[in-house]
């Protein structure tokens, strides 16, 4: 009884908490203003202008439809998709093998932390210096090419050049597989030793262990990370620009030239191109998130 009375008497004092909440709302305002001005407003500008005719200012789906009809744009998307598929699958497989080798391959302990540090550096080492490093290795006067020449074999006489689609793919792998290693490592850590022991005790072969235990657990994570790698390569610009000077017309390169001068012949097409790129990236990130959540069930 007394307790209730005390509570009743105290109740009105709880009020003054209210102004604090509005102060808190005020405190997060700079963040929202910043995000609106420099992230949401510029991106919505792109989305809106790709739906507005640049001459008549009327609403139109013309530019969006052009994404699927204009040959120049279609080719740009196709090259970007090809290079992203190749480097995400290739980088994903190689990154997975590397992470597994370091964590479960029975290699010395220090290899693991060394690999993680290297991957942290390599996944951040991209763009202009990366392009230069590969030119120094595999360019016409590169180190490896020089060694091959000394052995009497010049790949550049056999049609090889670094400045083509396959050369660029090889360079992209440099930031693709380290990202795979960094993201997949926790999932490999989550594979319990007991599962391997249990399947061995039940007489499973190494193939059966992978087919029925390890891969089903890891697959969502592997696929999800590969999708992330796809986005990582799809959005890349600086490496391709620095390596080939824009010779390989990826979507990002076309957007870059559209920004310098209207190469597509209509500003509206440029906006639609950029919007398409954002949509592909959004799909990639969503796919990654969904698949990553599926794996987390096993990794507690």
């Amino acid at each position: 009884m007394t307790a209730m009375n005390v509570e009743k008497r105290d109740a009105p004092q709880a009020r003054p908490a209210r102004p604090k909440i509005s102060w808190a709302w005020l405190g997060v305002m700079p963040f929202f203003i910043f995000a609106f001005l420099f992230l949401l407003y510029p991106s919505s500008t792109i989305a809106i202008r790709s739906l507005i005719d640049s001459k008549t200012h009327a609403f139109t789906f013309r530019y969006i439809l052009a994404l699927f009809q204009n040959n120049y744009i279609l080719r740009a998307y196709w090259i970007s998709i090809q290079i992203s598929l190749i480097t995400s699958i290739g980088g994903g497989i190689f990154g997975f093998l590397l992470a597994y080798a370091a964590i479960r391959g029975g290699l010395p302990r220090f290899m693991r932390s060394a690999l993680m540090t290297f991957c942290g550096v390599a996944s951040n080492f991209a763009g202009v210096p990366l392009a230069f490093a590969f030119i120094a290795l595999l360019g016409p006067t590169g180190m490896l090419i020089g060694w091959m020449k000394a052995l009497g074999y010049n790949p550049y006489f056999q049609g090889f050049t670094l400045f083509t689609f396959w050369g660029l793919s090889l360079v992209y792998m440099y930031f693709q597989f380290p990202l795979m290693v960094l993201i997949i490592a926790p999932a490999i850590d989550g594979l319990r030793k007991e599962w391997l022991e249990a399947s061995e005790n039940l007489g499973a072969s190494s193939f059966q262990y992978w087919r029925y235990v390890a891969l089903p657990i890891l697959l969502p994570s592997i696929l999800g990370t590969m999708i992330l790698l796809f986005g990582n390569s799809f959005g890349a610009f600086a490496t391709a620009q620095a390596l080939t000077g824009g010779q390989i017309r990826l979507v990002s390169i076309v957007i870059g030239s559209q920004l310098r001068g209207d190469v597509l012949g209509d500003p509206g097409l440029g906006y639609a191109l950029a919007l398409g790129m954002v949509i592909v990236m959004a799909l990639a990130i969503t796919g990654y998130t969904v698949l990553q959540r599926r794996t987390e069930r096993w990794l507690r």
Partner: protein
Amino acid sequence: MRRGNKVWWWFVMIVGILYFFLPLVATFIFSLKAKLGVLSFLAYAHVFNSPSFVYNFSASVIWAVFTIVAGILIFLPTAYLIRLRVPQLRTAVEFITLLPFVIPAIVLVFGLVRSFSQPPLLIVNSPVLLIAGYTVLSMPYMYRAIDTGLRSIDVRTLTEAAQSLGAGWGSILFDIILPNIRVAILSGAFLSFAIVIGEYILAQYLAKPAFAPYMAYQMQQKAYEPAAMAILSFALTWAAMGIISVVGRGGGQAQVGGGH
């Protein structure tokens, strides 16, 4: 069979090591060949003695410092208030902080240039736009670093203790909370530093002096100096990552990013 496996894993690892180091070794050796016939650090001397290098590189350092300060000033109060006062905004804020992963830098700069090159928002020539762009690019890392730091301390108790001693909001945030999460802030700061120093797209298209566009330009003019700059850039990235893993000591979250 076990031993066979081990040979295979060693093979994978060696391929990885070769792939990782060969381009760097090639660049390094090339950077030493500036003087005919002997290996020397001449190219490095040329780079460091060049006023245009000093100008562009220090510009990048200044952009990085402003980006880090802007990041702390904007994201620290936000992450703090989300944790303590307005948790209902968490989803919205986290969604926004991850958006830069969806919007590639080339699309961001496209949007920024087109949005801010006409009145009333004519700031396309101002360094403010460049720094804001960098802050956006580093936001996923900076915000997450700060948020992780806040999770590791008892924000509520610290705040109540400070309040009962009469501290105002500014001094709670910057005298109490900030020093307590300095490790997290440092790792976010060095990651932002590495991103800004290596970033090519924003400075190139906003026509501002910076290290990466300068290096790209030098690549077309010279041979040995860009090699020296590539090594310098790699050493800086390595140093930034090294500092992060030393101050973080094991709490090594995946540090990924950069302007590809």
